[in-house]
């Protein structure tokens, strides 16, 4: 699992690549720390190269959302493949995030 953080046009973008499963979750949790400093910057979670997400991965996404909301930042998910979209739908998570 690989993550890359970039600032793009005042937005904080985190790129996810590979499988975000239980084994990868602890390191990914540390890797997404820069997003905690969003302070009004909108966040994009780019999942174009994300192949798989487990419940642990969903929890990481939720933690990012929970941290961002009180700071006035919006969290967008970008580039989910079809399988991952179904995961978000069957857990009801599509109503929690915004998708671009």
């Amino acid at each position: 699992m690989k993550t890359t953080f970039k600032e793009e046009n005042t937005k904080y973008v985190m790129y996810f690549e590979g499988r975000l499963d239980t084994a990868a979750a602890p390191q990914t949790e540390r890797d997404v720390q820069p997003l905690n400093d969003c302070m009004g910057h909108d966040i994009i979670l780019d999942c174009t190269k994300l192949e798989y997400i487990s419940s642990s991965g969903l929890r990481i996404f939720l933690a990012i959302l929970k941290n961002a909301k009180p700071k006035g930042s919006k969290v967008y998910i970008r580039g989910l493949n079809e399988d991952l979209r179904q995961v978000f739908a069957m857990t009801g998570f599509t109503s929690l995030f915004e998708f671009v």
Partner: protein
Amino acid sequence: MSRILTPHGQQLLNKYLRLLPQMQQLKDTVHQQIVDTLHEQGVELNAIESRVKSEDSLAGKLERKGDKYRTLEDITDVVGVRIITFYTDDVDKVAAIVKKLFLIDWNNSVDKRKAHELTSFGYNSLHYICHLRGDGPLSGIPFEIQIRTALMHVWSAIEHDIGYKGAVQLPPEFRRQFSRLSGMLELADDEFSRLRTTMSDYRRHIQALVKSGKLDEVPLSMDSWRSFIEMHPMSRLNQRIAAVNQAEIYPASLMPFLPLMELFGMQTLGDVQRMIGENIEGAYQLALAQLAVTDLDILSETIGLQNICLYYVLRQGMGREGVLKVFEAINGKNSYNEALADGIMAQVDSLPLKGNS
């Protein structure tokens, strides 16, 4: 800007400069005490502003009328806080809270709302001159608290911009126009307050009907829907779905489902209740078909109602279009919804769509 001050005026200005750090501290203390207390009391504000008068502004005042003030403490608005409420009722409520928090100097405080002659116009706020309670180091410095509504604030800002403070210097041809405007704002303030009271009564009435279970008497509206979902009507279904994978349920609002209920033609909460009852088993079966083959152990609180809506449109024969509408209502319009609708349609064959059970 350089000012020409009398020696006495200069003395007062020097004292101001010496006391400036304490006055800044006083301003912050008062501001925070007000914010904390109003938050505790559940009073929502339009804004709260605080400031220490600038050196230039004070020097200007001393230049114009420095002889009027014997000591710096006689200038009661060097430290000032302005509390702007949404409603006129809240001006009195905030005033009561301020009276409890601070010592009020009644000789110098004025309720400008009551100060107008019947024939005069203007639209003003409540001004209290206060001191901190107790005998701490800041308690000797007076400060002014102004309390006004947002509309009063607008009036005051425009009055300041136009440059006519009070009626005296205003040419007679404009007096009538000003009077009409101030009357209109005063009326609007009263009407907003009345509207809030009426709506609170309505909400209490709706809540009582929902609690008593008379759902057929409750029209579907934002308020009634809120009261309904506060009763957690989906919790049993959610728990049943969660049990499939021993999942955790993440709290989420069901408010976004209201437009969907309206789209389904639900008129009352009774209609909604029946719709839920008729589709609850199918919603569970849909969740079971999806989740049992995964190890997903976290679900949004919306999952039960989402599946009820999906199952409802399928049973109504609304097909893919109906499913798409459900996702659009919940998620907003985005390119993902089409794929989500296709995903649901792929599972239709495994669902008991003909019967209720």
